[in-house]
């Protein structure tokens, strides 16, 4: 369950060096979540990711001959494609698994499916599942490294890492990923969001302050136990934050509007009025402050089109940052083939 660093050695010259000599494959190189990870471990992933963001060929193709399986039990567009691009950029072959059209429909259990795929000799399992804890459950029962690509409402750690990388990029913190002094507002459906849980954990561990904004039904006071503050009034915070992350209302996970709880907007139109990132609100943000969105967007609800397509919005930069982040994570988890022409720098 735990993330253990190994492989990345120091940061000589401000950039990481990749040392094939200390690379060994063991069963603990999972990335299940950012909760509980220390700042050093997070930075040790972000530093090579920043390097790869500059130059995707920085480390060559160290995973040539390796196989990564995208084990996706739940729908995905950007995450699946992003992991595929990342693995291929490192030279790995990628196998796509989707629950539809598989033996899952014949009653096979999650663990049997995972063990079956692992038995074919794969080097990493990238897992997405609608149940919180599913990636961790698989990790307990297989030897190959498991990378969590989203488990229910629990965590989406590579999304959290790419959010941090994008924020660091826009605020010139790529040097040491020290986010102290920055405040990030996460707005909307926090309760059902794995993106929010990973972002809150990662951002606060690196020194940023996080304020969650939304109606009580989607952003209950108990969210504060994750290490953030809770605010009902978006307009009270919009002018003072360095970034706003707009989240989709996850109706498919049981989110409801109109329950009359504290801050309840009543319906989608009122939600957009109270919690949507509108042009008018974007105009009131600090100079240099950015608007982030993990996608998929519901334009006109949590974010106005003019903002989504406007200068503050870094949503596509986030998508772009996803590839080097996932490359760094795959490299860490799998290690790399010593004899595969690794460009060690």
């Amino acid at each position, binding site marked *: 369950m735990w993330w253990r660093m190994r492989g990345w050695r120091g940061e000589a010259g401000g950039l990481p060096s990749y040392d094939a000599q200390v690379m060994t494959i063991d069963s603990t190189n999972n990335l299940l979540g950012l909760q509980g990870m220390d700042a050093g471990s997070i930075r040790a992933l972000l530093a090579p990711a920043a390097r790869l963001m500059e130059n995707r060929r920085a480390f060559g193709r160290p995973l040539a001959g390796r196989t990564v399986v995208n084990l996706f039990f739940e729908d995905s567009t950007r995450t699946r494609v992003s992991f595929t691009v990342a693995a291929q950029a490192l030279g790995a072959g990628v196998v796509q698994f989707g629950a539809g059209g598989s033996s899952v429909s014949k009653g096979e259990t999650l663990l049997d499916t995972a063990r079956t795929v692992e038995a074919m000799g794969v080097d990493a399992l990238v897992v997405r*599942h609608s*149940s*919180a804890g599913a990636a961790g459950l698989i990790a307990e029962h297989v030897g190959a490294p498991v990378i969590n690509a989203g488990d229910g*409402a629990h*965590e989406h750690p590579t999304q959290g890492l790419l959010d941090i990388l994008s924020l660091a990029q826009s605020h010139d913190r790529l040097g040491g990923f020290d986010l102290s002094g920055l405040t990030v507002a996460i707005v909307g459906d926090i309760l059902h969001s794995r993106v929010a849980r990973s972002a809150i954990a990662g951002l606060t561990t690196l020194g940023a302050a996080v304020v969650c904004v939304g109606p009580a039904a989607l952003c209950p006071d*108990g969210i504060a136990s*994750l290490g953030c503050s809770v605010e009902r009034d978006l307009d009270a915070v919009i002018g003072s934050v360095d970034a706003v992350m707009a989240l989709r209302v996850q109706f498919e996970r049981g989110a409801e509007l109109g329950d009359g709880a504290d801050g309840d907007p009543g319906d989608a139109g009122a939600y957009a009025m109270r919690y949507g990132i509108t042009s008018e609100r974007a105009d009131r943000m600090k100079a240099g402050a950015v608007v982030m969105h993990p996608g998929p967007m519901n334009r006109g609800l949590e974010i106005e089109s003019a903002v989504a397509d406007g200068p503050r919005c870094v949503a596509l930069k986030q998508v772009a940052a996803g590839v080097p982040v996932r490359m760094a994570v795959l490299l860490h988890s799998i290690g790399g083939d010593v004899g595969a022409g690794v460009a060690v720098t």
Partner: protein
Amino acid sequence: MIDQNPHQSILIRGGRVIDPASGLDAACDVAITGGTIAAIAPDLPAAGVDEIIDAAGMIVCPGLIDPHVHLREPGGEAQETIESGTRAALAGGFTTVCSMPNTLPPPDTACRVEDLLERIQATAHCRVFPVAAASVNRNGEHLNDIASLVKAGAVAISDDGDALWPDELMEAALKACRSADVAFMQHCQDPTMTVGSAMNEGAVSMRLGLTGWPDVAESSVIERDASMAIGVGARYHAQHVSAAKSIPILAAAREQSEHITAEASPHHLNLTEDACDGYDTSAKVNPPLRTNADMLAIREAVAHGVITVLATDHAPHTGDAKQLPFDQAPFGLIGLESALPLYARALVHTGLIGWPKLIEHMTINPARLCNLDRLGLGALAVGGPADVTVINPDWEWPFNADQCAGLSVNSPFMGWDLKGRAVAVVVNGRICMTWHKSGGLIA
């Protein structure tokens, strides 16, 4: 099956005999012949006795009664059967258990109750009394003929696993239970507030991203039910109380009516929501484990007489079923084998109550709840049925799968060091179980 022709004469010698029903707590011998208790007095003669149990340093009490177990038969025989579940009961020191009706099919007609009693007659190692379902198929829509269920042998009524929810149905059930002179046992869970809920609503569920289960989903049901039961004059029993919020409601209701009772389970007395951390499905239980404050409040409620019955909610599940993601895994954990030391850990070793009070909550109080006192169960009385449990209160032992006598081993207490154990069980005048320090269960 229980031997109906007891021929042993047994002398249980030199123990501390505790019988809460009569207030007895003294060093005595207990003599048993012909399935009944022949004498309770010091220094009884041993001449001609078939079996002598040396109870020096032991507690000798009425056979323990668990009014809330899931034996899974019929329909769930991979998890437990009447045969295996009653072995587990004996291993834990219980001479009587009440079986919950969430079987397939449920005992919801007199015929099905009679069928269940036939199965019990054929295979049970201890006494088993069925609790029958309140509604047809336990689906909470149409009430069963409660009078006929009771006539067939049901000792209480419950839709356990689900609350009986619609107001009018609940009131009708309470009236029928009053007429039949049985208790209604409610599974206190507001279904509308717990859709998809997997664990207590709080910091841990927030962190794990699991749907929370608010404590008010329990307390609001007890509040409604208690006011109805008091109005009707019915006997109402709140099962497995989990939330501190429920305690003042129960206390107030009990001030108004002695017919309102409640039970606490070993897990709610010993564990918190933290046990679910790491998505440990062995700690997934309905109602959920809650906070430390809730756990302490339930202990206090037992100490202050708000909760007067202890019940395991023994809920066996296969290893496969518990190896699912947390939100998909079934609720429940086994309880019979580990219950006694866990009650003692939470209540006696903490100094909240003494052994006599603990035994009262495990014998005469559940007996009265299920009308079993009318059969002489839950008490030690000369001429009464010889159901006796001998407890070594000081025996320290590790709880693990080897110590389990049932079919399933799903328990978050695996690996715990426990203190206190039933070392001999007499049912209907026959020694049905003994534990020896060298290990082993003779059933």
